[in-house]
């Protein structure tokens, strides 16, 4: 163990274990930041570097032309780009809000009320965990179609709310919540929804923060729902709009590759913000009641 004098008269203790841990973390971080570094680098690459062969990881002469290109493409598009952004934001936020509400309520009721058929519902949930939307994509389209939802926000929102994974996640947390607290509140005369909303939910912060981050990221990046359920230009969300910038689904126009790179970089900003805001909550320790066993 080495002691180093730190500022303000504090001592910094360096132990072998700590050093190893930091080294390990740094290696991990080095790997995981690669996509971001690449993304940022690509966004600033001039045209000739974008198509360099063999491709290079780092930009040599950073330029801003990609962003000016993007502004040009965006301003000349038929649908204003703010519309795509609004679509994405509206759809994603609605899904996040509704799915958090629906899955926490559902999980809470299933775990704590144990209504008839709770076991059956859980079996279905576990089964649903394993099926991807890929298998049911065509039938789901038929359902959405027959409900008359094509080309509406509902088509993008509704199918993504009752997600098995979400309720399973909430369930795992709800099981750890002490029943005594709920009973105590009930004796005190609290209404069931009140118990859920002002007693259970606040102490489930790590659970629903995780859920928010997870749902936001997946749906923000969701490419297939808008591709399938939406045909009008104005209803598209950002991932699809990226293709518009690229020059249509037939394949990227070479001249706009830079603009796509810039747009891709900009598109990740909301997810990073969401995560940074929510991550503090994820780390909040769950409230542990003063109940003694």
């Amino acid at each position, binding site marked *: 163990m080495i002691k180093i004098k730190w500022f303000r008269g504090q001592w910094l203790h360096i132990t072998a274990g700590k050093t190893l841990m930091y080294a390990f973390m740094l290696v991990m971080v080095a790997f995981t930041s690669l996509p971001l570094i690449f993304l940022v680098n690509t966004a600033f690459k001039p045209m000739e570097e974008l198509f360099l062969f063999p491709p290079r990881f780092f930009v040599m002469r950073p330029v801003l032309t990609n962003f000016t290109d993007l502004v040009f493409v965006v301003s000349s598009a038929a649908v204003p780009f703010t519309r795509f952004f609004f679509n994405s934001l509206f759809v994603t936020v609605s899904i996040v809000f509704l799915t958090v509400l629906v899955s926490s309520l559902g999980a809470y009721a299933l775990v704590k009320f144990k209504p008839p058929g709770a076991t059956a519902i859980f079996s279905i949930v576990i089964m649903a965990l*394993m099926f991807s939307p890929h298998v049911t994509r065509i039938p789901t389209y038929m359902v959405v179609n027959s409900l008359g939802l094509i080309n509406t926000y509902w088509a993008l929102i509704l199918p993504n709310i009752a997600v098995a994974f979400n309720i399973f996640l909430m369930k795992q947390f709800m099981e750890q919540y002490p029943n005594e607290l709920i009973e105590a509140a009930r004796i005190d005369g609290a209404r069931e929804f009140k118990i859920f909303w002002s007693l259970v939910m606040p102490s489930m912060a790590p659970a629903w923060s995780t859920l928010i981050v997870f749902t936001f990221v997946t749906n923000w990046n969701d490419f297939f729902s808008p591709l399938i359920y939406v045909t009008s230009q104005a209803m598209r969300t950002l991932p699809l709009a990226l293709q518009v910038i690229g020059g249509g689904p037939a394949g990227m126009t070479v001249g706009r590759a830079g603009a796509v790179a810039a747009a891709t970089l900009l598109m990740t900003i909301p*997810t990073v913000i969401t995560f940074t805001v929510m991550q503090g909550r994820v780390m909040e320790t769950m409230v542990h009641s003063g109940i003694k066993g």
Partner: protein
Amino acid sequence: MTKQKRKRKLFRVSMRAREALEGLFFVLPFIIGVAVFFAYPLFISLRLSVSQIDAIIGFRMSFVGIEHFTRAFLIDINFVPMFLIAIRNTLLQFPLTVLLALIIAVMLNKNIKGRGVFRVAIFIPFLLGTGEVMNQLLNQGVENQVLNILDGTIIPYNVLFYFGETVVMGVQNIFGMLVTVLWGSGVQVLLFLSGLQGISPALYESAKIDGATEWEMFWKITIPMISPMMLLVIIYTIADSFLDVRNPLLAYIEGFAFGPGGGQFAYSAALGWIYFSFILVVIGIVFGGMKRYIHTNEAERVKKDVSTKKKRILTIDRKRKY
């Protein structure tokens, strides 16, 4: 007397019924969602896999039996090899992912300097996109560039020459594995982290007072307490690696429906069902195997409460039901 008793009993039943009703009411939105957007489509897809489509408009189909399934195993030369590769990849990757995610989560959960930065950095691949954005990145060849340590940018040439080709190739393979696993473990780390946060610090404190070492605490407290999350993570990882966008088999299955020369919805559905029944079996095995080791809060409290044996039996019973 008897009348009164009956009345009381009746009241009690109705209380329970009321509670159950209230519970059902809370779950209702979820049930409707699952029924409309999951169960019903699933049923149609199952029907589709044993039918042929007579008319796209109106989606009329007629029963053909297991024709599509025999085609998958006996006629389609691509399906079975791809299927085996997908299985192999998943079985190789998922223990590694879970293990690595657990290690990272435990470290991130420690009170280390720069924790926030580490946390955000670990989740970057996940934030950048599980889907299209990442796909674009991969199309631009990030993976190959990262994997390609032979070009002298990451490790200098003389070092490479010194070690010789086999070592370099080995290192490169490990690099490749690490990249794939790390880039796909964001969700797992997040889940583990939130699970770790659910562990009461009091447990660690009392263990420390009793003289437990970090290592012992990890095995005796962290692992059991995190077991419900572990189950979720394992299921998620298996399902996710099977259903990854980069999985060639999935693209193959989808190709029959949406790809060039597509429109073979029925065959695509049948392939999907073969694939997913396999996932079902794998996860079923995992679930069945792990069920015994899953730790729930109810059981924990019962252990402390030795005095009321009846309650103990009751709760253990409840735990089993799970």
